[in-house]
Every structure is written in C-alpha cells, then in structure tokens.
C-alpha cells in the first residue's frame, strides 16, 4: 500500500487508515493507552474499544521511582485536548 493509492496527503490520513485497528495513544498527565480506533474528529477526539490505559505516577525525591497503574475499559471516548500523539499499529 503506497501513498498514492491510499491517498495519504496529510497527517490525519494516517489516523484514518488506522480505523478498526489497534492504536497507541499518548496523553497528557503521563498517561498512555492502546485500543481499537472506531472514530475520531478534527480535535483528535477519539472513540476506542478494548482499551488498556497505563498511568505513570512519578515519585520525585532522592531516588525517583515510577509507579505504573493499568486499567481496562470496554468503550471509551477520549477528549482531543489531552491527546499528544496517535500512533498506528506497528507492522512487523
């Protein structure tokens, strides 16, 4: 699938081609998640299913440690103003 046949012209096309695939989303507040992408809009509002969210809780101090919390959600709306990046599934 090259760019000309799939019609990639702008960044949002990369997200469009990830519809119904598992994507990685990085969010503000040291959060990230993966989920299957079902909808998005120009604000990067997203609707994902089968979501696993990871929250990094940084304990600052002499020896800074990071606690990681995970949780799962069936169907989730994510408000676009918290989205830093959306990455398509890795094709290895």
């Amino acid at each position: 699938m090259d760019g000309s046949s799939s019609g990639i012209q702008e960044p949002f096309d990369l997200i469009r081609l990830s519809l119904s695939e598992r994507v990685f989303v990085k969010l503000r507040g040291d959060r990230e998640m993966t989920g299957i992408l079902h909808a998005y809009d120009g604000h990067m509002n997203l609707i994902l299913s089968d979501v696993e969210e990871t929250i990094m809780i940084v304990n600052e101090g002499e020896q800074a440690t990071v606690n990681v919390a995970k949780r799962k959600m069936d169907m989730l709306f994510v408000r676009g103003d918290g989205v830093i990046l959306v990455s398509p599934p890795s094709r290895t």
Partner: protein
Amino acid sequence: MSSLQGYVDRRVLLILQDGRAIVGVMAGFDQKSNVVLSDSKERVYSMEDGVEEIPLGLYLVKGDMIILIGELDETLDQAVDLASIRAEPIPPIRPFPSLAVNELLVLLDFPYIIFQTRVIP
C-alpha cells in the same frame, strides 16, 4: 446554553477550576454559562476540621471557571452534618504543562511516525 435552564431558582453546587465548592441559588445564567448565585456560600473542606461555610452573598461566577454545576437535593443537603465531614478539598484542574522539550522527546521515542509522514508523495 439551554441545559442550564432547569437549574434557575434551584439550590446548586458549583465546582470551580481551582477546586472551590460554592453553593447558592441560581438567579441566572447566560450563553457563556456565566452564572449568578444568590445567598451563596463557599464550602471549605479539610481533613483537620469539619466543613466551614463562608457566606459570599450575591455572586457572579465566570463560565470559564466552572467545571460542574449540580442540583442539590435540599432535604438531603440539610440532613448532612457538615461539621462532621472530613475530606480533602476537590483537586484543582492542573493547567497544561508547557510543551517543547517534553514533546520532542516523545517524538524521538516514536521514529515510526516521523518515517511514515516522510513517505507521503
């Protein structure tokens, strides 16, 4: 905002961006969800003492500052003994941290994205 219409003349709880909780009777609102409260009081929560109510009187609250408006069930609310409640204040909404370096590091962690946008014809 039509969805605030139902709250006029009702006793409401406002939660603000900085975590403050204010109760009062909604006297009015406008399309920017600016709200006028009459007979309003701030409820100050702490772990050491019971809830303190500070009278504010007639108050205009800017819509941008409001995160939530809740209708109070007056019988339920009056049944609560505020002096016995110990709770942390509601957390404020953190302003977004500034970007730049942070964002750049994020991108470097995911070279896949940069590669993908380069192959665009």
